[in-house]
């Protein structure tokens, strides 16, 4: 393709895209700028991005110490990773069975999967909470993980993906003497890598972001996940110390953004794939 010329319509288009990009990015810019400002600068109602007095040290210290920020980030990461691993471990074999094996009850199981897609965790939070309370699991990391181990979305996504895989692959494995379980882990998982990574990204983003469930099950700050931790920070802060708040939001937002920037292709392909299968 020849180089695009700088025609009027192209300039217009680029201009509009740049304007849109600026609107998208403007919260981040201000977040960064405010995190460096002391309260007086924040309240001074000026649009200048660079602070008069640098208060970065104070703001970030407050952000890290008012609540156990690093511990909270760790909680979030741990919970997300453990959830994803369990979700894949449980969903993949069932998805394989649904996609490639014939057995009575297959239709029923798949129907339940579709039903499950409809019911978000929020709807069934009450009984799950009651169960957690009864088994004294409130205020533990376990309660943050257990309800999410089942992911019908993973089952659905993997099933669609595995269905598209050639049957010959599985026949060859059977002829080589592999058991069905071995087929799942030795053959299906390596070949379903695109679907698995796409799903992992979805799951991590969703659970990293989740406020509802931690809000109702966790009250101890050390066990909070980032969204909840931030909420605690907001209530711990006296007055409108936006500087410190912005510092806290920056710290909490950075991990996933960095991960995204490193693995951009993975994210985009993941979203695209769910779109094509959905």
């Amino acid at each position, binding site marked *: 393709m020849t180089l695009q010329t700088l025609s009027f319509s192209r300039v217009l288009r680029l201009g509009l*895209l740049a304007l849109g990009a600026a609107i998208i990015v403007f919260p981040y810019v201000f977040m960064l700028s405010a995190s460096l400002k002391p309260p007086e600068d924040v309240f001074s109602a000026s649009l200048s991005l660079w602070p008069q007095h640098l208060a970065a040290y104070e703001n970030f210290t407050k952000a890290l110490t008012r609540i156990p920020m690093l511990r909270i980030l760790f909680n979030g990461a741990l919970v997300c990773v453990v959830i994803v691993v369990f979700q894949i471990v449980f969903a993949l074999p069932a998805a394989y069975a649904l996609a490639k094996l014939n057995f009575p009850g297959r239709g029923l199981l798949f129907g339940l999967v579709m039903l499950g897609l409809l019911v978000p965790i929020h709807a069934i939070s009450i009984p799950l909470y009651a169960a957690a309370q009864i088994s004294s699991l409130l205020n533990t990391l376990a309660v943050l993980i257990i309800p999410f181990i089942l992911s019908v979305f993973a089952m659905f996504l993997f099933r669609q993906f595995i269905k598209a895989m050639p049957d010959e692959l599985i026949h060859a494995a059977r002829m080589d003497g592999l058991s069905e379980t071995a087929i799942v882990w030795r053959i299906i998982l390596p070949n379903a890598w695109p679907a698995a990574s796409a799903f992992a990204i979805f799951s991590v983003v969703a659970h990293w*972001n989740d406020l509802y469930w931690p809000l109702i099950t966790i009250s101890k700050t050390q066990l909070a996940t980032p969204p909840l931790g931030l909420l605690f920070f907001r209530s711990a802060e006296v007055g409108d110390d936006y500087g410190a708040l912005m510092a806290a939001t920056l710290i909490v937002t950075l991990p996933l953004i960095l991960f995204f920037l490193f693995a951009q292709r993975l994210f985009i392909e993941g979203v695209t794939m769910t779109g094509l299968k959905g």
Partner: protein
Amino acid sequence: MPRNWAARTGMTAFDRRERSAAWMLCAPTALLMLALLILPTLAVLALSFTDAELGVREFAFLGLDAYRDLFTDRAFLGAFRNTAVYVALVAPASVILGLILAMMIEAEVRGRAFFRSVYFLPVVSLTVAMASVWQYLMHPSFGPMNLVLKALGLPSVNWLGSSDNVLVALALIGIWQAVGFNLVLFLAGLTAINRDLYAAAEMDGVRSAWSRFWTVTWPMLGPTTLFVVTITMINAVKVFETVATLTQGGPSKASEVLLYTIYKEGFVYLHIGVASAMAIVFVGVLLVLLLIQTKVLEKQVHYS
């Protein structure tokens, strides 16, 4: 001969092996489904017909009256209305913006990956965190948004603090976060369109960009559009983080949305019976949305 034997016994050893292997593979998931999905759903359904409260032993069975009371409760209807307004603001805007931006980015050869990633940033940013940032941006006196308005000579707006504006403010945040996701999906749909179709349209005399859009782009984007609209609406109905962080349903319940109301009823006021009924209605809304879009529209949209 194996075939005759199968005909006589009704099932070959192969089938039996396949069946037991399948059950074994599904067993753990099935158990999880029972414990984490089916039983809780049934429990919620059961609770919805009662006036149970957490911590209180006695409760009465209300039957369908529970739902009747719900639909006459002004607070609940208000939450319903607020959610509907929010969805009506966020869904069309983020879908249309996503499409327009995707078409512009698609026409660009060089900057595609850059713009795509920039617009996608809000999707991977912590909602609670970015909501806090928007709160700062929307502050009535020193928030940059009002400062920009003042600099342009326009009156400043009380974004989150006024019951007239709060849903709009929340919707702005919602659109900001959703556009990037829709954009990526539309971009994928656009690049999947067979280039020959555009060439054929040109040969057929389709000259203007507008005609090209209606003749090729829009019809071929059908499935993608359906998916994007569905996902966007469902996510909009599930709005919670921004409300819980910024407004807690206020001012004066102007931003009480369905999920927040369920949360409050169930976990703050501990009226788990009422909250369960609300949760069932909530699922009902999602179900209706899904049904409308898959059954009615899908036929018109899938050509293969």
